């Protein structure tokens, strides 16, 4: 039986006191509800089994308050309540409604017992819930269903208890409430959040994989992608169950340093990297200085004429002393790396280096100590050096790996130069006019609609629209177009472009991260951080490579030592060499470096590649489909033909322009512009009248003129069009719109207007055909117009009269024939097709939607950049494949040699030389990627094409040389 207890409490000052008491009481078994009210000094408790007054009062006094019980009420078990729930579907346009009613009825007597008065009897609760769900709103419907199914009634009503409480007070016996327009209270409020982190301390892709794994284990994390080359992690997580702090902690636990990437701080980024590069260089230098004497000692074995042989007996002790700092101070990072990966129950590259060098070091140390104790001498006896010491192996290995890392990190720094360049373009301040005062303010403080003044030679701070003045603006940093663009009032200007001459005022339209430049930077960053599908292959290899190598190394050792009875030192050196040569560091660099350079290069030429996926898609494309309007054509009608039937052409143009100047028809603009371009002066008309669906009429120099279509001439002017019919239909068959100029008595001339093809279109199509690509044109226009334009562009395959919503379907049809299709478009109506295609290429002049849907964005409006994109991606993918070859080639060839499988043929590889060879493979991968920097649109990058072969030859030679050197021992 449950009881309601009313209390009087002394000593409460604030809400904390209420909570504190509630908190203390919550430990009582069977407590259902406790409510304290500090202003009135009262409290109420509902509890299933009355534990006795002393228990309750005791708890409260322990919390620091004095209380006494005023009265008790006996309640019926809560589960007695009745509840009904209803869900109704209402018309789609009505709001989502929730109505919950709660009625409490009590029946009984007011009596007193045990000296206190109280209510005794039966209490009934009745609750109803009604949900009105708008038709077609499946999301709401689902949320309501979830709520009804997942929650029991208590919880369901608990959802609304916040609102109902106030009502309950006003009317204690029955409470009514209605929640209107609050779909949120049942919907999911969780939001996915994106966070970017800078990560320090990664040595190879295994580390990246490790961090990814760790991040994905954090509850709430939806996806995590770690880019080794960029040292960045991108995480999407549910912000209701994880925070960026959690993620950073998780990364830290895995043994790496992480911090939230602040996008506005390229300086700090650069500083950090420079520090890291310097750090590695110092390490390398020290390591080299300490190792060099040992190299000299090694030469004693090969050449007898080398002076200083008297030092021979001391070689052992000197090498030991020189190696200790290398192994344990400079090489400490490898131990740390191994430790952190061991904690995650995996092995990484560091583990390999640490195990390899430790084997060499401790084996040598043991040999040295045995020698020293056995002979009672710290130096070699009889003027000879102590045999079987391999301290130099450990020292050289660490030196070479450190050298490799230094080179690698330097290369990594250079690949992201493209972004740094872009960020550097941003201006720092803006000159804003506020309340009549002009003031320089920080660019971050600029607000929307601020009026900004730009002087000649200055950078335009944010995106906006010119409201006063005019100028020419150099937009080359965004479009690559070096000729300044004329800007007048009403034209838009883009942040980071440079104002040439003339000053103007403009209104800020896009600021902060919304500006075009910021968007581009974000796109490139995302692209460079993304992974190409081919990367999955590399990741997979490196994830099982390390354990496999360890097993192989152990097998090598066992085989040599136990089966073939080789000496311990021989077997151990083979073991160490296998471990070292197998490190697939280069494999981890293969994809990211090429993508970084490739996308960076693309950005330089106004081709934004949004990541590895479009890049890979672009090189496989076999069919290119162009949208017509705005893509192949200028998307802006132009006057193409002028036919004078009476008087000269100039006169026709002048009169037409004069009439159309006042018209708002889209074609009118083309005519007026044409007159201006041709510098034909025209007078403005008076008594202007537009006749919708026909044309216009107006007076110039007291002459009445008509300008419009056939209908205007036939119906309004009532002249016969028969004699111009032949010319008109000829023009019309070319896809042109023809307009007629007439006076009241005769037809004066014809003007044809058409959407003209871009100058670059035909060339782009030709080049694409040359590369063996099929080119299609897709348009909603009628077949005749479409074919006319297609012919000009040199396209033979035309998909005409395609409804906007069917564009994606047409693409699908092409794809079904098994071809990879690229779609090039600019409009909102192209977006589905862009998304459907294997590769979407959006024109930068197009709509934001199209740019969002496309995998590649072409900033300039030049179709030849489609070619640039395809060429660049083909070259980048080729680089990736070459890189993978380089990375795996050394490992695969190197392992058997290192395992001394070919020892009989004189091919062995000493561990330190294996270390150098491995460093070479990293260097060759990075160098190979960097050669992409020589990419120029429509030019063969010979250096980049030939280099892989040259490098492969050189490195094979070096490899064999190493094997030979190793043998000499």
């Amino acid at each position: 039986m449950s009881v309601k207890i009313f209390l009087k409490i002394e000593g409460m000052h604030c809400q904390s006191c209420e909570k504190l008491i509630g908190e203390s009481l919550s430990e009582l078994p069977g407590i259902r509800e406790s409510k304290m009210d500090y202003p009135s000094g009262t409290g109420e408790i509902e509890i299933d089994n009355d534990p006795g007054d002393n228990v309750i009062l005791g708890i409260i006094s322990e919390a620091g308050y004095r209380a006494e019980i005023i009265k008790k009420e006996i309640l019926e078990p809560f589960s007695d309540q009745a509840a009904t729930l209803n869900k109704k579907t209402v018309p789609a346009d009505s709001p989502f409604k929730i109505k919950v009613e709660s009625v409490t009825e009590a029946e009984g007597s007011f009596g007193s017992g045990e000296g206190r008065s109280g209510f005794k009897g039966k209490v009934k609760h009745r609750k109803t819930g009604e949900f009105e769900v708008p038709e077609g709103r499946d999301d709401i419907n689902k949320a309501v269903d979830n709520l009804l199914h997942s929650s029991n009634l208590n919880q369901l009503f608990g959802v609304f208890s916040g609102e109902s409480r106030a009502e309950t007070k006003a009317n204690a016996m029955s409470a009514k409430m209605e929640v209107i327009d609050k779909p949120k209270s049942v919907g999911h409020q969780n939001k996915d959040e994106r966070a970017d982190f800078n990560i320090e301390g990664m040595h190879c892709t295994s580390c990246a994989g490790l961090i990814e794994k760790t991040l994905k284990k954090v509850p709430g994390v939806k996806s995590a992608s770690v880019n080794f080359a960029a040292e960045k992690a991108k995480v999407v997580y549910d912000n209701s169950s994880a925070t960026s702090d959690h993620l950073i902690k998780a990364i830290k636990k895995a043994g790496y340093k992480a911090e939230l990437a602040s996008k506005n701080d390229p300086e700090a980024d650069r500083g950090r990297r420079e520090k890291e590069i310097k750090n590695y260089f110092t390490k390398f230098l020290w390591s080299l200085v300490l190792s060099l004497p040992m190299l000299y000692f090694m030469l004693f074995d090969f050449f007898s004429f080398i002076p200083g042989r008297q030092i021979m007996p001391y070689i052992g002790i000197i090498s030991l002393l020189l190696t200790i700092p290398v192994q344990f101070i400079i090489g400490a990072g490898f131990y740390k790396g191994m430790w952190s990966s061991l904690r995650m129950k995996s092995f990484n590259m560091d583990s390999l280096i640490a195990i390899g060098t430790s084997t060499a070091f401790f084996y040598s140390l043991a040999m040295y100590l045995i020698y020293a104790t056995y002979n009672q001498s710290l130096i070699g006896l009889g003027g000879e050096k102590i045999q079987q010491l391999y301290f130099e192996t450990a020292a050289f290995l660490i030196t070479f790996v450190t050298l490799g890392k230094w080179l690698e990190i330097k290369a990594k720094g250079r690949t992201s130069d493209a972004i740094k360049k872009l960020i550097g373009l941003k201006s720092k301040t803006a000159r804003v006019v506020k309340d009549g005062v002009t003031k320089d303010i920080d660019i971050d403080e600029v607000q929307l609609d601020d009026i900004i003044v730009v002087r000649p030679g200055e950078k335009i701070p944010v995106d906006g629209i010119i409201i006063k003045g005019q100028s020419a603006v150099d937009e080359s940093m965004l479009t690559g177009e070096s000729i300044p663009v004329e800007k007048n009032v009403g034209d838009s200007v883009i942040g980071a472009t440079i104002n040439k001459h003339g000053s103007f005022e403009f209104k800020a339209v896009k600021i902060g991260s919304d500006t075009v430049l910021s968007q581009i930077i974000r796109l490139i960053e995302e692209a460079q951080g993304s992974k190409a599908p081919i990367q999955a292959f590399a990741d997979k290899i490196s994830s099982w490579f390390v354990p496999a190598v360890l097993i192989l190394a152990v097998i090598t050792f066992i085989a040599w030592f136990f089966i073939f009875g080789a000496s311990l030192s021989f077997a151990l050196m083979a073991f160490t060499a296998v471990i070292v040569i197998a490190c697939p560091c280069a494999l981890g660099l293969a994809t990211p470096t090429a993508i970084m350079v490739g996308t960076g290069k693309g950005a330089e030429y106004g081709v934004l590649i949004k990541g590895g996926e479009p890049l890979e898609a672009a090189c496989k494309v076999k069919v290119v489909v162009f949208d017509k309007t705005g893509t192949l054509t200028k998307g802006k009608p132009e006057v193409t033909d002028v036919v004078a039937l009476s008087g000269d052409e100039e006169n026709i143009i002048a009169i037409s322009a004069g009439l159309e100047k006042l018209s708002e028809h889209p074609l009118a603009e083309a005519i007026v512009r044409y007159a201006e371009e041709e510098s034909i002066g025209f007078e403005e008309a008076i008594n202007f009248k537009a006749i919708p669906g026909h044309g216009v009429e107006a007076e110039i120099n007291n002459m009445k003129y008509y300008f419009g279509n056939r209908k205007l001439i036939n119906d309004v002017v009532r002249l016969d069009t028969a004699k111009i019919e032949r010319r008109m239909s000829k023009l019309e068959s070319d896809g042109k719109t023809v307009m007629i100029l007439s006076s009241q008595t005769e037809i004066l001339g014809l003007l044809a207007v058409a959407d003209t093809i871009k100058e670059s279109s035909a060339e782009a199509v030709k080049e694409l055909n040359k590369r063996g690509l099929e080119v299609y044109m897709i348009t909603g226009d009628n077949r005749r117009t479409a074919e006319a334009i297609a012919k000009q562009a040199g396209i033979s395959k035309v998909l005409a009269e395609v409804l906007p919503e069917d564009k994606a379907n047409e693409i699908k049809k092409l794809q079904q024939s098994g071809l990879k299709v690229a779609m090039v478009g600019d409009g909102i109506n192209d977006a589905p097709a862009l998304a459907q295609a294997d590769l979407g290429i959006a024109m930068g002049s197009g709509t934001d939607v199209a740019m969002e849907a496309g995998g590649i964005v072409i900033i300039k409006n030049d179709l030849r950049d489609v070619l640039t994109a395809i060429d660049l991606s083909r070259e980048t993918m080729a680089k990736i494949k070459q890189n993978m070859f380089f990375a795996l080639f050394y490992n695969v060839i190197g392992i058997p040699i290192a395992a001394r499988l070919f020892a009989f043929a004189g091919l062995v590889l000493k561990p330190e030389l294996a270390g150098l060879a491995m460093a070479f493979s990293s260097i060759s991968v990075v160098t190979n990627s960097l050669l992409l920097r020589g990419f120029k649109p429509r030019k063969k990058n010979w250096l980049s094409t030939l280099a892989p072969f040259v490098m492969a030859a050189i490195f094979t030679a070096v490899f064999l040389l190493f094997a030979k050197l190793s043998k000499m021992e």
Partner: protein
Amino acid sequence: MSEIKFRITNLTCEACVKLSIMALKKIPHASNIEVDLTSGLGKVQSSQVIGFCEIEKALESVDKKAIVLN
């Protein structure tokens, strides 16, 4: 052993302090919790690094607001 310092901005009486400490105690690995009523300064030591978000969340559950100090 790490330590995090913060300031609770809406303490009114000892109950608030007690409540805050109760809430902070629930953070895993938290030990040596101190909260001063007059200054609002709070300190939590822990064997593992605790993020400020955890402190914030714990205090939020008792309607207390905190700002981070170090």
